[in-house]
């Protein structure tokens, strides 16, 4: 327990050399670190969802407000749910439900394809880290 005061004295001996302007410069430096990380390391965030039916673009929606989209296909209607920053196929008339089981897509480039009903949902972003992602 005698280590506490010694450590504090040691730190104080170093901190004595920090002047007011130094703290300002350090604050700015940390700000640059955080700002650059936020600006450069968010490539995977999607901006919008692209819904295709029968190979043609059916709808492009911004991922800003929650929304439900019904997309008609040869088997029936595929329901796509949009939420801020993510989207999913909520219901699909296809037999195997692969696109529904993929769940929420939240990365730019992610794609859910409901092949039997010829509907696909893809997320696009300005600086996408991947061209295409599927699971």
């Amino acid at each position: 327990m005698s280590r506490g005061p010694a450590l504090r004295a040691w730190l104080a001996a170093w901190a004595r050399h920090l002047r007011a302007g130094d703290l300002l410069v350090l604050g700015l430096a940390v700000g640059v670190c955080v700002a650059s990380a936020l600006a450069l390391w968010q490539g995977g965030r999607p901006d919008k969802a692209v819904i295709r039916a029968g190979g043609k673009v059916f709808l492009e929606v911004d991922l800003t407000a929650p929304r439900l989209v019904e997309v008609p296909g040869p088997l029936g209607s595929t329901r796509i749910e949009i939420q801020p920053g993510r989207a999913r196929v909520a219901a699909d008339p296809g037999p195997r439900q692969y696109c529904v089981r993929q769940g929420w897509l939240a990365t730019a480039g992610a794609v859910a394809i409901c092949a039997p009903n010829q509907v696909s949902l893809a997320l696009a972003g300005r600086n996408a880290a991947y061209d295409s992602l599927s699971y």
Partner: protein
Amino acid sequence: MTPSATEIELRPSADDHRVARHAAAAIVLTVAEAAIPLPLPGVKPGLANIVTLVVLARWGWREAVWVALLRVIVGSLVLGQFLAPGFFLSLAGGLASLVALGVAVHLPRRVFGPVSHSVLAAFAHFAGQLVVARIWLVPHDGVFYLVPVFALAATVFGLVNGLVAARLMEDDGAA
């Protein structure tokens, strides 16, 4: 030996000796630092800059330029890096940080100490390196992906080097 009429005599002044001594200390730190394994090329503590900071505070910017550039050139010769890509990166970083130091010394001394000089120089150093790397070595914007890593390294090592330099000058009075 009788001096011939054409012989040029070099008389190193006290200033020259001082520059040489400081440059030698900086070169030793460069070589010692090269032995430390580091996870990412380009990220290193830059301990030799402690010497530059001390020279800057005690003897002024011109002498700091001499010491820093001698250190870059001789350090690369010793490590076998002279004129290799790493040498040009060091040179670009060194020149950029000297420019930053040239500006930073004019900040009021009472408020901005060696830590400010050190952090500003460290940021200029990685910026200079990055510009050369982007233009010449990795002509792709992908290098900027590493900016946050370099910025963090510049902050941490800038702080540490600045504190060490400040402590070395503890007895300098106002400096």
